[in-house]
């Protein structure tokens, strides 16, 4: 009676739609696709800010943003500051720097960033 089995929905239509939107947007740029990023080598990627992380007060002030280009994700960590004007949810950024792996994610510390027109 497989029909009656409760199934947890893995992805919705909106997720697919969003992926396609992002791919269309960033595939035209001359950058590395995020799923093809090689750690510990200089890369240039571009994506939309999917998420910002507000870190706790203790420790060094940092701003963490997660970019997505529809193929993959790259996390940029800016230390010494809590916010950067223009680096907010939904904006597009190009990043230049070296990524390191962390729990399956690509993390770029203090990359050079360019805010792209949305």
């Amino acid at each position: 009676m497989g029909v009656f089995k409760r199934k947890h929905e893995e992805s919705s239509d909106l997720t697919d739609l969003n992926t396609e939107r992002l791919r269309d947007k960033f595939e035209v740029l001359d950058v590395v696709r995020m799923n093809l990023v090689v750690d510990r080598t200089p890369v240039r990627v571009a994506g939309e800010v999917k998420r910002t992380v507000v870190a706790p007060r203790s420790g060094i002030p940092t701003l963490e943003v997660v970019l997505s280009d529809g193929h993959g994700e790259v996390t940029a960590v800016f230390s010494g500051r809590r916010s950067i004007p223009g680096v907010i949810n939904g904006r597009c950024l190009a990043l230049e720097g070296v990524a390191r792996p962390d729990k399956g994610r690509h993390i770029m510390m203090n990359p050079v960033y360019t805010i792209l027109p949305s």
Partner: protein
Amino acid sequence: MANRFKKFLIGNPIASSEEQHQRLSKKVALPVFASDAISSTAYATEEILIVFLSAAAAGAAAYSKLVPLAIMVVILLAIVVSSYRQTIYAYPNGGGSYVVSKENLGEMPSLVAGGSLLVDYILTVAVSVAGGSAAIISAFNGLADYRVELCVGFIIIMTLANLRGVKESGALFAPPTYLYVGSLVTLIVVGLYRVYVQDLPPIEHVGEAKELIEQQGAITLFFFLKAFASGAVALTGVEAVSNGVPAFQKPESKNASNTLIMMAVILGTCFFGISMLAKELEPVKDHEGLINDTVLAQMAEHVYGGRNVMFFITQFATFAILILAANTAYADYPRLSSIIAKDNYLPRQFANRGTKLVFSNGIIFLATMAIVLIVAFGGKVTALIPLYAIGVFTGFTLSQTGMCVHHWRHRGARWRFHMAINSVGAITTFFVAGVVIVTKFTDGAWLPVIVIPLLVIIFKSIKRHYSKVRTAVAVEPGYKVARKTHLVIVLVGAMNRGTLNAIAYAKSLAPDRLIALTVAHDDEEAEHIAQQWIDYGMTVKLDIIHSPFRELSGVIMNRIDELDAEDADDIVTVVIPEFVTDLRTQWLHNNSAFTLKAKLLYRPNTVVTSVPVVVD
């Protein structure tokens, strides 16, 4: 508020320890257990006549067949009763068909018996209430248009009474039953006296009734058997005594057995007497219900010479005993369904006792099904009768067969004799069940033929499911609970006391990872909450998620999936702050939380916790 309404309807709860087991004397037990069986005399003769007059169109020739048929039914009654006497002695703890066939014949037969009986109890309610309403309508013809409403009303009243907990007390049952038996015997004696001594002529009919009686159709064997199948409904309810043996005073079996015989004598005499009277008075009834008065009412009116006190007493007594008969189903159905539920063949809810110590769910289900039947068949007894007898006789057959096996296994004193009686019972009732199915198949007997096997399939699949679940969660020796990484996610809507409480609570869960999630729909919102998060000096990371399509639950679910995927063995607790306000304004809050909860409910390895903030 709902509680207060419930209390108003069904009264104060009763503690489990207050349950009383009252023992019944024979005088009281007779009305309690026999009302169902005896009440069928109110419509059995009528149903025979309907087959002859309406289906066979036999006209006046029908009346000559009434007495032979009545004799056949009485013989059948004698066979069934002597078989059931044996059951009473063999099962002093109560031997319903389900119990007897489960013990002696195995799973499948017991399920068939259980299913048949459950169907039958529903029909007992429907048929008896329809019959009771017919008695009332015969007395007050103006009510004929409200037949269905009347029936449904009676069922609802009875349901409420039973939810409150009606004791099977003699005080309630005895007067109507004895009144009915008394009025029936009076009717028969006075009627026969007036016919044979005072030469009372048959009832004169006009209109449609006259047309019916003037038809000249032939009574074929098929119609004879069909009429017999209708008459056999007189036996419904006979098994009640054997179900209730423990309720008798000591010596239980002997008292029960004597009560059973008393009942059979009353039932047989009344049925036979009514049939004889009907033969002489020639009352008329059709299957479409164009004639409102019941056969009993027509005869009472004729015998007593009009609608006088005696007529109304007869009608009310008939009504009262039929309602009582329906009420016995209210006692038996929930009890049987609870036994079946305890064996895991029905949802466990049927085994639960309600606040008044009655099996509330069984009662409500029974009432609902009976109402459905009444509405579907327009509240007419005749339409329901073909559905009725099959279950009874299937139950009889299985129970008697079970008794045969019982005698064979135990082989006590004179076991051959006992086995012979039960074998005759089993064969006869099996034959009758076959006759009912064959002769009434197109009239509606096909319904139980489908429903009962369907019920058996449902029983089995419920059992299979319960067994599967039990095996799946069983604790094997040496089982240890696996240590899981605990990821706690707090959903944040805005910065307020609710959020702070939720985060404090989340910390108390000692999580391996703790993260707060919020969804921002625009830049301002994102900046605002980020600023506040810093200003309040929060010590937990806050993920501000961008929702490109301004939607909430989807992005949150995606993020939870991502976080969950980072560890292979984790368990996720989602903490949701919730405002609790009074009933009038509650709907203004938590609507998105509600959607999320509904989605998270089906997520594996996920605990959803609400942290309430009470706002007065």
